[in-house]
Each structure stands twice: as C-alpha cells, then as structure tokens.
C-alpha cells in the first residue's frame, strides 16, 4: 500500500451517473403510472413504495447509526392513527397523512432524549416497550374503539379510481422525497459524520463528531418516515386495527429487507424492499411457513452474510450505483493498474467496536 500513490479521490463513477439518471427516469415513468397500469398493478406498486420507505428508514437507523430498534412499529401505528385522528377532526384526508407524520416525527424528538441513552440490546427492547405503550394509549381513544379498530372513512369522499391514483402518487412522492433526503443527507458533511459513527462511535467522537445530535437527527427522520409509511398504509388498507399496525412483525419485515438487501448500503434498502415484495407476492399465501422462512432467512443472513447482497457486491466489485462515500483510486508502481477502495472499507474490521 505504501508503494502505491493516490491518483484520484472520486465520488461519482460512470456507472453511478447512469444509475442516478436511470432512477430519475424510472420515477418519472412511475409518476404517470395510474394512466398506464392496471388497478391491481397500481395497488401493488403503492405497497412496494411503502416497503421501500420502511426499508430505507430502518436501514438509516441501523445501518448508518448502529441503532437496532425492535419498536419502529410504534411510529408506523402512530402515523396511521394520527392520520385518522386528524381526518376525523376535519383536516383534509390527504394532507392529514403528511401532517400526522410530521407530528409523530416532532414527538419523537423529545422521546429520543430518553431512548438514545440506552445502548445496544437495551435500546432495541426499550423501543419495543415504547411501541406497546403507544399501542395501549391509542386504544384509549374512543375513536379507535379498542382492538376493533376503525377506518379512514373520510376517503369515501373520493371515487375509488381517484383514490387509488391519489394514494399512489402520495406514496411515490413520499418514497422519492425520502430517498432524496437520505441520499443528500448521507453525502453531506453530516452524512460523513453519521457514517463515521457507524464505523466506530468512539473514534468518531474523538475527532469531534457530535454523536448524540447526529443520532437524534436520524432517529427523528426514521420516526417521521416510518409514520408516513403507516399513514400511507392506512390510506391503502382503509381499516385501522391497532394490533395489526403495532405488531412487531413490521419490524421483522424491516429487518428482513435491510439485512438481505445490505445493511448500511444505500442501494441495499431498495434492493431488499424489492426482494421482500417479490417473496411476499410468491409465498405470502403460505402463511405461517412464509413467516418461518422470513425469520430463518434473517437469522442466516445475520450469522453468515451480515453485509447482505449489496454488501457482497460492494466487497467484490467496484460497482457503486448511488455512492454516499468517497473512493480513493490508487496506482501501484509495478503493474500500473489502478484499483479503487470504497469509503466503507474499514467497516468490517470495526464491527466489534459497535
């Protein structure tokens, strides 16, 4: 290594320029989706967009901040509840999806003060307790009628075709917006700080990264995004049964998507959501065995391939589609061939520190 010379510090590669352009084109095509796709396809895509949001948010929290939470269903359920509550108070039903998520995000800020002082597994289950508490408190609202639940009846004001298209556009806009926010965030100086925390928290702190405020920002963003996903889910499912929304199964889905796709890689979250969506489409009817399979896959990935599919791609190729780090290009004096080292290179070595 000492004999090699750094010839370039690069972020964009030809492949990543193409990937970002392709992503923009795909989103533009998806934007006219309701005009070309069948009703069933529109519904399916809406579901996929929500999965992408969930995977992205959990991956931001865990993959980039090292905060494993088993309680993200708290925000999913609260987002759905907030939308129903606001719509019942007379706020327009679509604005209330976003407004509700904003309120939940704002509430998560003071919550982060308490929860982020917990470490590791304690934080994980502490969040689960928070989610149980949120579930019980939501049940106290007479509008929800306990576990019987309620529905977003205000949506009946729209004809079913319009409703489908509007919900689809909301989900697409939410997904594209959150992808852009997280992408921008991770590429900013703060994003470099966040990735430094992921790599080694003590080392990051020692060079002046404000660890706690960075973690709080990501915690709040993840709460907001997950709440938005919950609100969008209630807009597609129409019914709100607290038990179904506050179920830890949602976190299991998020873990599955992030782990299989590639924890701590930006592309991995999207890939994981698409894989999960495909598996659910093919095997979802199998019920219990489908869930056993999800649990087993998550276990196997955690034990054997903790970097997931995209992590493998990053380790074995120099392919970066949506780069959030920098790469150093070296030339070695003997062969003259160049090789690139990703900005994420040190991560596996520092795993024990996390």
């Amino acid at each position, binding site marked *: 290594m000492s004999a090699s010379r750094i010839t370039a510090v690069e972020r964009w590669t030809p492949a990543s320029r193409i990937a970002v352009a392709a992503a923009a084109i795909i989103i533009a095509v998806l934007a006219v989706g309701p005009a070309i796709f069948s009703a069933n396809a529109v519904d399916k895509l809406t579901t996929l967009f929500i999965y992408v949001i969930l995977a992205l948010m959990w991956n931001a929290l865990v993959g980039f901040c090292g905060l494993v939470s088993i309680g993200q269903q708290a925000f999913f359920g609260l987002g759905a509840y907030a939308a129903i509550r606001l719509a019942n108070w007379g706020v327009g039903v679509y604005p209330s999806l976003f407004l509700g998520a904003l309120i939940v995000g704002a509430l998560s800020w003071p919550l982060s003060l308490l929860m982020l002082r917990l470490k590791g*597994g304690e934080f994980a289950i502490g969040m689960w307790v928070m989610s149980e508490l949120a579930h019980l408190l939501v049940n106290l609202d007479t509008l929800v009628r306990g576990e019987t639940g309620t529905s977003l009846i205000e949506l009946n004001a729209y004809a079913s075709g319009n409703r489908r298209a509007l919900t689809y556009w909301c989900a697409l806009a939410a997904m594209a917006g959150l992808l852009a926010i997280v992408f921008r965030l991770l590429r900013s100086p703060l994003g470099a700080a966040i990735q430094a925390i992921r790599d080694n928290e003590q080392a990051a702190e020692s060079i002046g990264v404000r660890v706690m405020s960075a973690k709080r920002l990501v915690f709040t963003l993840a709460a907001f995004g997950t709440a938005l996903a919950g609100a969008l889910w209630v807009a597609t499912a129409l019914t709100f049964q607290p038990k179904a929304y506050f179920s830890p199964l949602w976190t299991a889905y998020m*873990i599955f998507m992030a782990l299989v796709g590639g924890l701590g890689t930006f592309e991995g979250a999207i890939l994981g959501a698409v894989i999960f969506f495909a598996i659910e489409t093919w095997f979802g009817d199998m019920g219990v065995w489908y869930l056993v399979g999800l649990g087993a896959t998550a276990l196997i990935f955690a034990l054997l391939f903790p970097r997931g599919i995209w992590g493998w791609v990053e380790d074995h190729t120099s392919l970066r589609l949506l780069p959030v780090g920098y790469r150093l290009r070296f030339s070695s004096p003997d062969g003259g061939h160049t090789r690139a080292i990703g900005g994420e290179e040190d991560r596996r070595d520092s795993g024990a520190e996390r």
Partner: protein
Amino acid sequence: MIFLSQIIQGVLLGGYYALIASGLSFMFGVMGVINLAHGSLAVLAAYALFVLADRFGIEPFLGLCLVAPAMALVGWALQRLVLERSARGGVLVPVLSTFGLSIIIDNLLFEGFGADTRSLAPYIGDLSYDSWSLGDTIAIGKLAALTMAVAIVLLGGIQTFLNRTQIGRAIRATAEDSDTAELVGVNARRVNAIAAAIALTTVAVAGAFLGMRATFDPYAGGAQLIFAFEASVIGGAGSLWGTLIGGIVLGVAQSLGALVNPQGFFIAGHLAFLAVLFARLSFGDLGQRVRTALTGRNRS
C-alpha cells in the same frame, strides 16, 4: 383494603416476573447478550410441558425434570450455533439473529399447535386455584406463593453458584474480561455455553409457571420478553437480586394500574419501567443503590 390486597397480589406477581427475568438478566450480566428469543423459548418450554401432560399424562412438576435438561441442551446449542457466531459480528448482530430466531419459534409453535390458548392449570389439581385467606378480603394464592418461593430459591441458588463454585467463578471472570480469563486457563467458549445452558434451565422453570398460572398461545413470547426485560432493567440490568426487586416493582405497578382502568394494568407497568429508566439515566442505578443500601457493598 382492596388497595392493600392489590399490593400483595402485585408483590406475588413480581415473583413470576423475577422468575422469567432471571435468565435474561443472567445472560445479559454474564455474556452481555440480550436474547430476544427469551420469551419465545419460555413459551416453547410451556408447550413441551403441555404435550407431556396432555399426551403422556406426566404432570408438569415431573415433566420439568425432563424439560429443564432439554432446555439446557437448547441453551448450549443456542450459544454454540447462534450467539457465539453473532457476537463476533458486533453488538448488533445478536439482537437481529435472536429476533429472527423468535419469529421462527413463534410461527413453528403456531404451525404445530394452532391459535388455541393452552394452560397447564388443569394438570396441577387444586394448586392452581387454592389459597390461604387472611381476613375477609385478602387471599394469597398457593401457586403465587410457590412462584415467589421458587424465584427466591432460584435467584439465591444462582448467586451462591456464582460466588462459591469453581465454574461460577470462571463464569464471573469471563463476564469481566474473557481474554484475561483465557490467559489464566479458563475456557471461555465452554464457560459461555454452560452459562447459556443455566440461563435456559431457568427459562424452562419460568415456562412451567407461565403455563400453570395463566394461559399461553404461540405468540405469547413477545409479552414475556417485555416483562422480563422491564423487571431486569428496573432492578438494574445484569444484577440478580435487583431482578427480584424489579419484578416486584413491575407487579405492584401493574396491580395498582388495574384499579384505575382495565387497560391500566399494562400501561402502569410500562410507565413504571420508563419512570425508573429515566430516573436511572438521570440519577444513577436504582437497583445498585438499593443493594448498596441493603448490603453496604458495591458489587453483589
């Protein structure tokens, strides 16, 4: 008077929470691992006892003689196959892998036994409902009292084992610093596997009492994990006698909450947990302080 009665019931309920929390607390204290499959494993043990009683007519207390060693083997395997490998990947991986394991266990139980709730109460005769009455309004259930007694014996037994035996000292040394323990001849891998086996033996006992005192279903594991976690955090994570205090605080909070509102039982429990957590993070460890006050020592 009903107030006093509720407090007494809450204290006794705390015995069960201490029981279910002891394995979680022990594992966290010794191995630094929070096992998210803890509750599901307790439910698994309860189902095993149910099958023994239902199909083979082996009553639960006798059945425990078979299930406890079996769960110890499960603990050994869990440590060797899952936890050991996970721990190498950092502190996050055990959380993910044990959560995955809990999903597998829960759904396999559902596949095998369906959604029906089960109970071990029918197989223990009048112990499940018999009680001693003190005055007109206060009754102490014999099963609840037995649960408390078993919790105290179990926690005391583990404490004595850790303090007095060779292997107990090896476990504590490994918990303190496994590399240094290896230097002085402790086989850390073996010690951790033994510790996991002990933890899972307590899980088998907790599963037995879970089944005897109430009903359970395949998805009951999550709630048991949460109770165990709350009790162990309230008492000061990783401390055994603190776990008993934590269980009692949780049980009393729930019993008093139930007086206020039907849903108050769980809400009060969670709020007590959060209040203690907040106090602990702001002013130091409650369990540690109580122990220090009681024993005048810093480490138990």
